[in-house]
């Protein structure tokens, strides 16, 4: 999707000698889209679709962010490597979020404000899987 900035090299008085010139109309349309999406996301808040509220909210935010990056930040016309930098950084954030969230979710029953009985259940539920316990029975004396 990127075209090299070289296209604009030989600019005249009104053209940059480097970089890409984005037309004002593109900018204005982007802005309008952003404002519309803002209104939309506020509106959706008042509609209850359960779990989907957050999905929609994030979805709209991602869309808006994409618009900003592509048009305001010229990423659409930019060097592929700059695009990669942007996407890769977001990927690493997602990585950090994913792994840490999985871990805390896994551990949630062990928190103090969890139910102690539940903690015991969690611990117990794991027990039958113990290779030694399962197959030799040595761990269950008398």
């Amino acid at each position, binding site marked *: 999707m990127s075209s090299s900035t070289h296209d604009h090299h030989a600019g005249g008085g009104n053209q940059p000698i480097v970089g890409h010139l984005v037309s004002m109309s593109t900018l204005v349309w982007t802005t309008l889209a952003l404002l519309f999406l803002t209104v939309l996301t506020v509106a959706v808040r008042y509609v209850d679709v359960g779990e989907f509220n957050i999905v929609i909210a994030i979805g709209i935010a991602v869309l808006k962010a994409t618009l900003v990056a592509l048009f305001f930040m010229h990423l659409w016309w930019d060097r592929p490597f700059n695009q990669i930098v942007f996407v890769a950084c977001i990927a690493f954030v997602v990585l950090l979020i994913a792994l840490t969230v999985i871990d805390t979710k896994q*551990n949630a029953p*062990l928190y*103090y404000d969890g139910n*102690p009985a539940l903690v015991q259940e969690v611990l117990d539920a794991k*027990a039958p899987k113990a*290779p030694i316990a399962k197959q030799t029975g040595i761990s*269950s*004396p008398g």
Partner: protein
Amino acid sequence: MISSLCGMFEGVVLLLAEAGSEPTPSNFWMPEGASKQAPFIDLSFYIINWINYFFFGLVTLVLVWFSFRYRQRSKHVEFSEGPVHNTTLEVTWTVIPTLILIGIFFMGFIGYLDLRTPPKDAFKINVTAQQWAWEFEYPNGAKSTSELVIPAGRPVQLVMRSKDVLHSLYIPDFRVKQDVVPGRYTYLWFESDVVTDPDDESDFFWLFCTEYCGDSHWNMNVHVRVFPDEDFEEWTKEQARWLDVIPEQDLYFMAGPKLYKRCVTCHSLDGIDGSGPSWGPRNGLPAIWDRVVKGEGEVSGGSKFIAGKNKLSDYIGDGKLYETPEAYIRESIYNPGALLVAGYGNQMPTFQGQLNDRAIDAVIGMMKNIDQFNADGSFKDQAMIEEAEARIAEAKAAAIESTPAEAPAGAVSE
């Protein structure tokens, strides 16, 4: 393939579980292996060891051999020709380590599963860690702080929590370790057949704290002892009521030194200040009880501190904050932040809920008679101890007769 690998390893685990009832002695790499888990961990270690010996040997050999064989012969060599790449070779030494590593991973994984899955009927002991002491609480309410005693031949599960910062419970000879995290429960299980002599205090395994937790982290160690069922049962019963069976007049020297073990990390008896003021004479002042009675101690802060009143005597006495010196000491143990001795911050944890009135009496008694104790906290007069022991033995016998709370004890011997 993976499942057959798993199966293979499980087979090994089982074999070892059978073989593992014998303790492995300490050797060049590993300390004594005294738990059911130790053999497999050791085996994993040795397997990696041999793989590593091989690769290390290979690398070193090639390194030394090439450096010697191809050393520069003339003074100024300008160029030497050799292969610059060889895809087959390179792929080979990418793939072989990869396969080996996959194997190692599964080995570790299988062993880990075992470490993480306590048997359902494991004997459960609650562990509370705090700076810088361990407390073990048994199903019958018994508590122990100076040592962890476990029943031999039964899986034991520790359910752990921390009162302040991270700690980590580590028993090298059992090859188990788990951090103790404030705010959540963590657990750990092991099983040991290696009985330690109940009558020999020097027969034990070490339990270390391996997560850095402050000044006395290095000192947060206790002994682990593995008792046969009957001794274990007896021990827990005794622990549950050891304080109760000591007659009032013997408390300070029979219970005092034992309780003092929890204070010793911060409070010395020889006048050298640690994390807390010494109980002995310090800084030209008398020993602790006299300091309090005479009100000579200096205070400099705390929630009940009143600006300008820097002497203990401003706080202790009729109509003052503390009517008696005992009340002051008691508060200092339950609510250490109330009045702070000059030169010390609010470091001491509260012992509220851990020391009951009898325990407090014992500690205060010990303070009152501090000159009868050695610098390590032991009582000087052996004869008195013997006399008291006789009295306690009697009382104990009586108490066990009459106790109705047999249910947990029954659970122990089951």
